[in-house]
C-alpha cells in the first residue's frame, strides 16, 4: 500500500489548491488526512457514539446513585435530637465512606482498578459496561452532594405542610420537595453533566474507542497531531455549548412559577 504524502496528494488535488500558499496547502492536506482519507470521519463518528453512550449511561446511573445517597444523608441529618434510626445510621456511614473514597481518589485510578483489577472485561461490550459503571459510580458521589444541597435548600415548612395534609414522607418528597430541589440544583447538575462528558475521554485507557481514542488512532496513522487533536477539542466544545444551551432552556421553563 502506498503511503499518502503531501506531494502525491497534490498530484490528485484540484487546481485551485495548487495556487494556494504552501502553509495553507499543508493544512488542507492534514484536514484531508484527518477526515476524508479512508473515510476517517467515520472514526470520529464511531468514537462519538461510544462517548455518548458512556456519558448517558453514567449520567443516569450517577443520578440514581446520587439521589439515593442524598436522600439517605438528608433523612439521617434531619432526624430529631435523641431519636436515631439504627438502619439509617448504618446506611449513612456507608454513604459517607463511599463519598470519601470516590471523591478522594482520581477517576483515572478508579477506572484502572475497576477494569483491570475488579471487573476485567473480556470483550468490547464488557469494557463499555465497565466504563459506564465506573464513571456512574464516580459521578454519583458528586451528584449526591449536589442533590443534598438541593434538598437542604427547601425550607422545613414545605415538608411539614405536605405531612400535615396526610401525605407520607415518600409522597411529600416526590411531589413537593424533589421538584423544587431539582429546580435549585439544575445549574450545578448541568455543570456535573458537562464534567462527566469531558471525563469520558479517560475511558481510552481501558481500551474503549471513544472519540479521544479515535483521534489518537488517527494521529498514530498520520503522525500529524495538530489537526486531529484540535478537531477533537472543537468537537467537545461544540457538544458542551449545545448542552449548555439546552440546560438554559430547561432552566427557564422550570422557573415559570417564579415570575411575578
Amino acid at each position, binding site marked *: 500500500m502506498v503511503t499518502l504524502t503531501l506531494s502525491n496528494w497534490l498530484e490528485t488535488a484540484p487546481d485551485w489548491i495548487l495556487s494556494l500558499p504552501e502553509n495553507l496547502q499543508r493544512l488542507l492536506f492534514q484536514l484531508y488526512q484527518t477526515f476524508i482519507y479512508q473515510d476517517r470521519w467515520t472514526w470520529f463518528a464511531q468514537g462519538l457514539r461510544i462517548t455518548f453512550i458512556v456519558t448517558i449511561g453514567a449520567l443516569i446511573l450517577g443520578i440514581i446513585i446520587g439521589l439515593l445517597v442524598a436522600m439517605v444523608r438528608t433523612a439521617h441529618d434531619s432526624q430529631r435530637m*435523641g*431519636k436515631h434510626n439504627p438502619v439509617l445510621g448504618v446506611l449513612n456511614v456507608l454513604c459517607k465512606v463511599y463519598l470519601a473514597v470516590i471523591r478522594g481518589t482520581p477517576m483515572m485510578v478508579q477506572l484502572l482498578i475497576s477494569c483491570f483489577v475488579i471487573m476485567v472485561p473480556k470483550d468490547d461490550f464488557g469494557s463499555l459496561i465497565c466504563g459506564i459503571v465506573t464513571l456512574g459510580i464516580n459521578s454519583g458521589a458528586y451528584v449526591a452532594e449536589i442533590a443534598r444541597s438541593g434538598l437542604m435548600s427547601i425550607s422545613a415548612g414545605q415538608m411539614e*405542610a405536605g405531612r400535615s395534609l*396526610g401525605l407520607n414522607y415518600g409522597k411529600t418528597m416526590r411531589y413537593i420537595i424533589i421538584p*423544587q430541589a431539582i429546580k435549585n440544583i439544575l445549574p450545578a447538575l448541568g455543570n456535573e453533566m458537562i464534567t462527566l462528558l469531558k471525563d469520558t475521554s479517560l475511558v481510552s485507557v481501558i481500551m474503549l474507542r471513544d472519540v479521544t481514542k479515535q483521534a489518537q488512532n488517527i494521529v498514530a496513522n498520520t503522525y500529524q497531531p495538530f489537526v486531529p487533536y484540535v478537531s477533537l477539542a472543537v468537537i467537545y466544545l461544540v457538544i458542551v455549548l449545545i448542552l449548555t444551551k439546552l440546560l438554559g432552556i430547561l432552566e427557564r421553563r422550570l422557573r415559570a412559577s417564579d415570575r411575578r
Partner: protein
Amino acid sequence: MIDVKNLCKSFGDHQVLKGVNEHIEKGEKVVIIGPSGSGKSTFLRCLNLLEEPTSGDIIFEGQNITSKVTDINLIRRKMGMVFQQFNLFPHLTVRENIKLAPVKLKIMTEDEADKRAIQLLERVGLPDKADSYPVQLSGGQQQRIAIARALAMNPDVMLFDEPTSALDPEMVGEVLEIMKELADDGMTMVVVTHEMGFAREVGTRVLFMDGGNIVEQNEPHAFFTNPKHPRLKDFLSKVL
C-alpha cells in the same frame, strides 16, 4: 374529640411542655394565648404529631395517635393545619396546591378535586386566582389559599399556628374574617394567636399557657374581664 393526657415534650434538656391535660369537644373554638416560649405552638404541633411528644397520650376521635400502631398519615387527613409562614407549594399553582393531597391520596378524582378547589376558592374569596402561583399573591391571599388547601381534605378539626403573625397589618382582617366564617359554619378549631379581638369574638374557650402548662382557661368574656392568675393579669395588662 381531642383528649390530651399528661403531654410532655422536651427538646434536649429543655422541657417545653410539662404535663398538659386538655379536652377539646367537637364544635369548640379553642384559642390559645400566652407569651412566646410558653409552649403554645409546640402544644398545637403535638396535636397532629408534627412534634413527637416525649411522653403522654393524645386521643383523637377515640384513637391514641401517639401509639406506634396508629397510621399518623390517616389521622392527619382529618386535621387541617395552617402555618404562620403559609407554606404554600411555590412550584404549583393555587389550584394545584389545593388539589395535590386529595388527588395523590386518591380521595378524589382530578375532576372532583377541581370542582372542590373552585368551590373553596370562592369560599375564601379568591376564585380568580386559581391559576396564579403563590409568589404572585399577597401574604393575606396566600394565607387564605393555605386555609382552602387544608379544607380540601374535609378535616374534622382545623389547627391554626399563629396564622396572622407573618402578615402586614392591613391583611390580618381578611384572614381573620375567613376564620370567623369557618367558625360560624361549625368547624372545630384550635387557634394559637396573638389576636385578642379574635379570641374574644370567635373563641368559645380561651387557654392561657405559661411555662409549659395551661395555667388558666375560661370562656372569653370572663377570661378577659376577670383574670385570676397573676401571670395572666400581668400578660393581659401588657397586650391589651
